[in-house]
């Protein structure tokens, strides 16, 4: 398995190279000009040209791409056109809030959605099942920002229990950290909970029809043991797969959630950079997101072996 893991990590290199080329090319052909944004209304076309030249944006595509790749290989993601700060510094400033939000959402979602799906499957056709499925439909249908505003209205404005916006670093204490993140995590987790709960229920229903479950029942195993030891373990592979795929949902959702709750994360950094055409920042963040996504999927693949010993790499 170690050899497999190493092979997979090495396989991320060509994937990242394709992503890099794709992102760079897209930004090259996309409309927008950071020099014009910087120069402002008062600038003459000559001023805009001079700014473009000073930023190196007037050089040929291949020269710029080659230089960027070379810098990346040397651990240098470049410097933001607007802030003059290294992209790595900007990412470092923003990575904790996004990571915190995603991890908390992931934990919340898995700890709520998996039991919900299991119970819905166990009580198939009952009001519990219908309630869980109703919640799942709601989770898919209501946009993240609507959930966010409703939660902020109830818990921050009306009840005054939690703050409306902002982020407190984890090093300043677990409760202040949680206080700022709990509403965003619930808002972001809605769709994720819905997805995992549905898949868990569907997979569990299939597993619960299997012969070995009937055998376990015949042997007198308890309901809890059947559900969580026999059925859930065998249903885990599709559930874990969906959790992995859902990380992409979380990354996308984080952009909206961070805006609604004014969390200074990578999502907002990306949107701000796109609106201003801050190319080095966009390239750096997209590359990072791609890398994280590839790694999460690798982790999921490795987890399969834990749940299903028949899987060998």
């Amino acid at each position, binding site marked *: 398995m170690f050899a497999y893991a190493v092979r997979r990590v090495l396989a991320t290199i060509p994937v990242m190279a394709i992503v890099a080329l794709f992102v760079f090319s897209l930004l090259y052909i996309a*409309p*927008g*000009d*950071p020099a*014009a*944004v*910087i*120069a*402002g*209304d*008062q*600038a*003459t*076309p000559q*001023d*805009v040209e*001079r*700014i473009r030249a*000073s930023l190196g944006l007037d050089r040929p595509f291949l020269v710029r791409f080659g230089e960027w790749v070379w810098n990346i290989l040397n651990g240098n993601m470049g410097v*933001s056109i*607007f*802030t*003059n*700060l290294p992209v790595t510094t*900007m990412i470092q*400033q*923003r990575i904790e809030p996004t990571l915190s939000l995603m991890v908390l959402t992931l934990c919340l979602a898995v700890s709520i959605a998996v039991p919900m799906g299991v119970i819905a499957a166990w009580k198939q056709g009952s009001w519990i099942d219908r309630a869980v499925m109703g919640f799942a439909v709601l989770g898919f249908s209501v946009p993240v920002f609507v959930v966010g*505003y409703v939660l*902020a*209205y109830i818990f*921050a*404005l009306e*009840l*005054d*229990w*939690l*703050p*409306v*916006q*902002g982020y407190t670093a984890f090093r300043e204490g677990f*409760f202040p950290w949680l206080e700022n993140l709990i509403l965003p995590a619930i808002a972001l987790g809605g769709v994720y909970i819905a997805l995992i709960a549905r898949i868990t229920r569907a997979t569990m229903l299939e597993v619960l029809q299997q012969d070995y479950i009937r055998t376990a029942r015949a042997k007198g195993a308890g309901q809890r043991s059947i559900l969580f030891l026999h059925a859930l373990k065998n249903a885990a592979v599709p559930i874990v797969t969906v959790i992995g795929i859902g990380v992409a949902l979380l990354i996308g959702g984080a952009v909206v959630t961070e*805006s*609604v*709750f*004014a969390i*200074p994360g990578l999502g*907002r*950094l990306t*949107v*701000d950079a*796109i*609106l*201003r*055409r*801050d190319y080095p920042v966009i390239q750096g963040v997209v590359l990072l997101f791609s890398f994280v996504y590839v790694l999460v999927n690798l982790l999921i693949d490795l987890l399969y072996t834990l749940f299903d010993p028949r899987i060998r790499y």
Partner: protein
Amino acid sequence: MQRRHLLAAAAAGFAAPALAQGAARVLRVVPQSNLTSLDPVWTTAVVTRNHAFMVYDQLCAQDAKGEIRPQMAEGWVTEPDGLAVTFTLREGLRFHDGERVTARDCVASINRWARRDPFMQVLQPNVAEIQVLDDRRFRFRLRKPTPLLTMALGQTQFPCFIMPERIAQTDAFQQIRDPIGSGPFRFLPGEWNPGQRAAWAKFDGYVPRQEPVDGLAGGRAPRLDQVEWTVISDPATAANAMTTGEQDYWEYPLHDLLPLLKRNRQVVVEQRLLDGTYGICRFNTLHPPFDNPAIRRAVAMAVDQRDYLRAVAGNEPGGWEACEGVFTCGTPLANEAGSEVLKTHSLDRAKAALAEAGYKGEKVVLIAPGDYPQINALSLVTADILRRLGMNLELVSTDWGTLVQRRASKEPVERGGWSIIHTTSSGQSLTLPVYHLFLRANGPQAWFGWPDDPEIERLRGAWVEATDPAEGRRVAEALNHRAMEVMAYIPLGFYWQPSAWRRNVTGAFRAPATVFWNMSKT
């Protein structure tokens, strides 16, 4: 005390009173936009200018009446022949790194700024040399009398901020990295997280003038220990943060949310800026149909500024005003000579004028920036007028970043060009012909739309040369008249952009820009 804070204090037990001791006066501000650059010469972004007003000082500055008063300068002396102006700096001026502010710093800063400021570029041919006389004095040697010199140096639109010489020697097209100034607050680079947070601390070494604050002139006394900007891009979240007291000051609340804020007894909603924000509808004069001035005037006949202003600022009483001339209303040059075309307000007469002007159904591309609510609203009103006039309209909805690139295209609409764009401008920028961007008509050198009208350019030059106010006024009337004939842009009136602050914030005053000196918090 809010319930949440009460709970937190209870949880913290005896630690809470200790935290309350020696609390610094920190003003938590939601700025108008993200502070991405710290160099007010490199970019003209208003948010960077607001940062610069905290960090840097000016030689002279505008008071509430628009007059230029000494600020860092103790004063200046103009020679009787008008060919030299000598500035003397006040005693005790220091930069944030402890170095003294000298005349050399001022000259280097003026030289860097002059390379980018359009106003100073007009006056630059008159300047023979700027000489350093000693540590506190420097002199402009002029080729001819230039009474507008102090106005250029003290303007608010593109202010001349003073930096240390070593920093001011940076090329004007390169961004500076070291935000050291001599202003009332010093920037805290370690706390800067672009897109989220920026902070400034009171500069204890600042020596304010003794006069009371008056616009941007007078004593710039820092009364807050710290000013913290938190970027909240979502207006509803910013409004909620003001309501709960998580933020103290919101620079530009969305007009739709003003009624909500006004209902809150803990929040004050008032006008702080001295000038309104003016709407501009700009034609591309290079290509049909708007290469024909008669067609531009026909569209102007259908415009009723009130429709635009309601679309942006709603029906709030006193929230906006029509202003049917090219100069900022209420300023000395404001006039409506020849503005009858803007007072037509008739779709039928506009249709007739359009037919008479020979409109043949050419395609009109109007670009609207969806991420810029005010400019988008102006664009959509024009789109509606054009449709009702029966013009062949293509409305392109895009983002501001794309618009600023596409507006530079001189190609016809079939090849990625454009016909109409909108923008907004501070009233400050439209007060004088010398920096009135939309009045320029020098063809390829003019602002996007590139109108070419030698008569407007001649009048602009005549205004710069005018020596007495009456003559300047006459030239301004002729300019307004000619601008209405050329109709390179349609003035769309102005709306007020109020600010909101918590009631415990004191000392807010009206000024041409958002500044935080003289303000405090109880």
